[in-house]
């Protein structure tokens, strides 16, 4: 912890900027990146339409724990917003990060310069946050246009989605440093999909069996969904701070672990 704090103190904004600048430069490498970027955005949007709106027509209205009654799509949309924040950040810090660390040796090349492992981790996380924010910004516009939230609550939810991006980006990066090869990503994808289905995304967790509800409450996307939903639909409570705290811990621990692993793996 002390070493992490020292690393934060000595971090150079210009070197972190250079790491981000590299990823901006890579945007020009060809259309493939943009295709991936676009498909990543549309995935939660498609779920919003098919399940939130489509299945929602069958489900009807939903009574929230607080007693308020909302359309099913209003309930599902913030969850999809949290999911797009998660998947935008994860896409960068898992697949792209892993490729740069293991295959293209990009980080190895960078570490021969004054840039330090911690600065690479921070730069990569910042870049993941950019992608995550592009997703969530566009998604919030869709929500406002569809009347699923108000512009004011949309603005309130935006910082929450940033925190979600940071938390998942950091943990994804930490996991990537442990990956042995592409086959390990299958497990990650499966895990991500399980979180997507069961984190109070499509039905309130209170409807689950009690033991299952407790299990869900330990997993990260649940906290992301609760925090983002509370703000997007204007249901504020002190509990939101608890969810935010969970995500802050994820972000800090993930970042510190990833930086350490970069050092351990590449500086030997």
């Amino acid at each position, binding site marked *: 912890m002390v070493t992490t704090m020292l690393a934060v103190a000595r971090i150079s904004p210009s070197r972190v900027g250079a790491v981000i600048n590299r990823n901006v430069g890579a945007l020009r490498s060809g259309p493939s990146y943009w295709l991936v970027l676009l498909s990543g955005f549309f995935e939660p949007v498609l779920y919003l339409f098919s399940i939130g709106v489509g299945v929602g027509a069958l489900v009807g209205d939903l009574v929230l724990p607080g007693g308020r009654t909302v359309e099913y799509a209003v309930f599902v949309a913030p969850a999809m917003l949290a999911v797009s924040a998660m998947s935008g950040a994860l896409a960068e810090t898992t697949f792209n990060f892993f490729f740069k660390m293991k295959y293209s040796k990009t980080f*190895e090349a960078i570490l021969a310069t004054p840039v330090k492992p911690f600065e690479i981790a921070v730069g990569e996380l910042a870049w993941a946050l950019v992608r995550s924010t592009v997703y969530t910004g566009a998604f919030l516009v869709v929500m406002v246009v569809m009347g699923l939230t108000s512009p004011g609550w949309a603005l309130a939810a935006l910082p929450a989605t940033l925190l979600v991006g940071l938390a998942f980006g950091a943990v994804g990066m930490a996991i990537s440093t442990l990956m042995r090869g592409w086959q390990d990503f299958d497990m990650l994808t499966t895990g991500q999909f399980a979180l997507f289905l069961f984190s109070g995304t499509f039905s309130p967790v209170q409807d689950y069996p009690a033991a299952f509800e407790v299990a869900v409450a330990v997993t990260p996307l649940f906290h992301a969904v609760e925090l983002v939903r509370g703000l997007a639909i204007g249901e504020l409570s002190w509990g939101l701070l608890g969810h935010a705290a969970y995500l802050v811990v994820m972000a800090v621990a993930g970042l510190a672990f990833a930086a350490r692993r970069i050092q351990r793996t590449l*500086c030997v």
Partner: protein
Amino acid sequence: MSKQPLQSLIHARGLVKRFGDFTAVDGIDLDVAPGEAFGFLGPNGAGKSSTMRMIGCVSMPTAGELRILGMDPVRDGSRIRARLGVCPQLDNLDPDLNVRENLTTYARYFGLSRAEARRRAEELLDFVQLRDRAASQVEPLSGGMKRRLTIARALVNEPELVLLDEPTTGLDPQARHLLWERLFRLKQQGTTLVLTTHYMDEAEQLCDRLVVMDGGRIAAEGSPRSLIETYSTPEVVELRFPDEADYAGKLEGIGRVDPLPDRILLYADDGDAAVAEVHRRGLTPSSVLVRRSSLEDVFLHLTGRTLVD
């Protein structure tokens, strides 16, 4: 043997690098002076790359003393790396960037401004003769071009000390000569070069001074010429015989005899005289080659085996 410590860009005493139970570098002493071209010669696994990574401040010494540019790599790694240029053994150019962007992006890691990065990239594209390919992606480049780009990238921060790990391994002769010529120009401009190689001709071409490494230790140190003078004779006769009989014994007394699987080396001050003596003894080798002694002979003498990987 060593220069004044204060004038050393690289100063090592008893430098050790261990990976678990394996000792890659086993207590070496080094001093490299400014402006020098210094080489590590040795087979794969001799500890050259491990030493280079420690000098490059990406790998920390397990034991011993190491000062680079007068600083401590453990404490000042980032500050030292700011003044180094590193050309790694395997090209790690950025596949998502084109040739020019590989240089400008790399310059930014050293804190150079966008404008300065562009200026240096243009200069270096000319220096390594890649101007025509500036907008090309990295992947389609030939091995020699990639190497030149990696070297250009290593120079983007105008380093005082350039580390080259096997700069020409795997390149064709034309590409090697072009690279040597560029490296020689760098040396003339006063840049200190440290390189590893397992090519004797490369060491002879480029290095003012070199160490022969074997099994993590330094087996010998000196200029290419002095090493040859110390550990070999001015000339070497290479003899091949049509059959497997023991010719080594029959050559005794002419000079030092070194039987290799496919030929016999005869170390002599005067090669032609040695050949005359071979014939006088009634021996009829199928081929005879008299040549000047090279670093290969030094290596053979020091380690008892040929320099192959």
